[in-house]
């Protein structure tokens, strides 16, 4: 016993090292993906207050691009307005008062984001008090961004497409064949588009949009354009897609509230239980 104690004491450095590494690894592996997002959510609410106050100067890095995008968006909306204004409502037309607006957009600002890790996250400055709940979709002016995974009172954490845990059901715009968008953990500009069979003709430049199969993303939101197509002899194409959203300059995102979400989920659950 004495010898054992002496041995431990003599090599305490290495044992303390192993002990601390043990704790670190336990933390690292104990959190599976879901718990990890909960951890992120819980700690983010504490840390994002601090980061929110510092994100002001971050915004200066992207002012120019942001301006261009806003003026572009402005022009697009102005066009829409004139188009709507010119369509006359005929008197006596029955107005449908039953259906509500299915999708509602809530603008928010990115406080923190990362693109160079394997598991990237975004934090935005809208939370539970502003009506944000988990599983809401987020889009930018240029396309799909990610999904809300955790909310605190005033902030929420998003899992972007550029996270290794992210999967998105998407389809080709031209012929509606659908597949899965996945990020391989390399450049934040490119993702791979999987499960498109080889007999489908696909060319660089084709648009990829969301499929709308889940109740999260509305249908037809831009994801990106096909950059290159490879065939390695398998049953599926190997497609590289250039994302339309540039995560490195992302500053404004719109969160999408889907009004019929509970209704749709209830319906799906009913059929699942049978």
């Amino acid at each position: 016993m004495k010898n054992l104690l002496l041995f431990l004491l003599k090599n305490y450095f290495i044992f303390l090292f192993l002990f601390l590494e043990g704790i670190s690894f336990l933390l690292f592996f104990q959190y599976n993906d879901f718990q990890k997002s909960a951890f992120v959510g819980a700690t983010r609410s504490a840390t994002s207050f601090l980061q929110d106050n510092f994100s002001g100067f971050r915004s200066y890095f992207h002012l120019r691009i942001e301006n261009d995008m806003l003026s572009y968006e402005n022009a697009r909306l102005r066009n829409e307005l004139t188009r709507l204004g010119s369509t006359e409502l005929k008197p006596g037309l029955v107005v449908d008062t039953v259906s509500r607006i299915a999708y509602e957009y809530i603008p928010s600002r990115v406080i923190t984001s990362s693109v160079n890790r394997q598991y990237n996250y975004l934090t935005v400055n809208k939370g539970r008090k502003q009506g944000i709940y988990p599983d809401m979709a987020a889009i930018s002016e240029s396309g799909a961004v990610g999904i809300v995974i955790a909310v605190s009172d005033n902030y929420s954490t998003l899992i972007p497409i550029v996270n290794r845990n992210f999967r998105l059901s998407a389809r080709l715009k031209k012929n509606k064949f659908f597949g899965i968008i996945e990020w391989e953990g390399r450049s934040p500009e490119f993702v791979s588009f999987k499960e498109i069979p080889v007999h489908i003709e696909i060319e660089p430049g084709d648009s990829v949009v969301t499929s709308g199969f889940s109740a999260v993303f509305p249908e037809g939101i831009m994801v990106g354009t096909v950059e290159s197509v490879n065939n390695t002899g398998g049953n599926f194409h190997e497609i590289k897609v250039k994302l339309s959203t540039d995560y490195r300059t992302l500053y404004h995102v719109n969160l999408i509230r889907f009004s019929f979400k509970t209704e749709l989920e209830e319906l799906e659950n009913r059929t699942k239980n049978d």
Partner: protein
Amino acid sequence: MIRIYIRNILRFFAVILIQVLLLDNIQLGGYLNPYFYVIFIVLLPFETPKWFLLCLAFLLGLSVDLFNGTPGMHAAATVFMALVRPFVLNNFSPRDGYEAGTFPRIHYYGIEWFAKYTLILVLAHHFFLFFLEIFSFSDLFFTLGKIILSTILTSLIIVLSQFFIYRK
């Protein structure tokens, strides 16, 4: 003596804030992110007890983890770096050992010594960190490239920072 404690405590918080508020927001080419916060371990006094070194490294790593949402990842890498430090210091020590009252800084031991010492510690940290993050050997060359480039960048920033915030 008290001044050394206070200086290191302040540095502990300063490097975390610099890391999470500034450096984590600046993305260079999308691939690189300098993990400057390890400078805290680099600059600790020679006389720091080994057990204390490990505990400090663990705390430092865990604090960065809290901000990044990666429980345990930075902690594991920083503790590994702290393990390596005494061995590196032993190997690089001048013929008659480190003088009392000196610190591991350019001012005392020269830029060549400091650069070598920093490079090896940072390499140990980044090697551990990036393999833990990717957690596979499938993209070996991609990971190695990332490790080497990031190590050079982090070390460069640490060495340069010595010229900007220079105090005896």
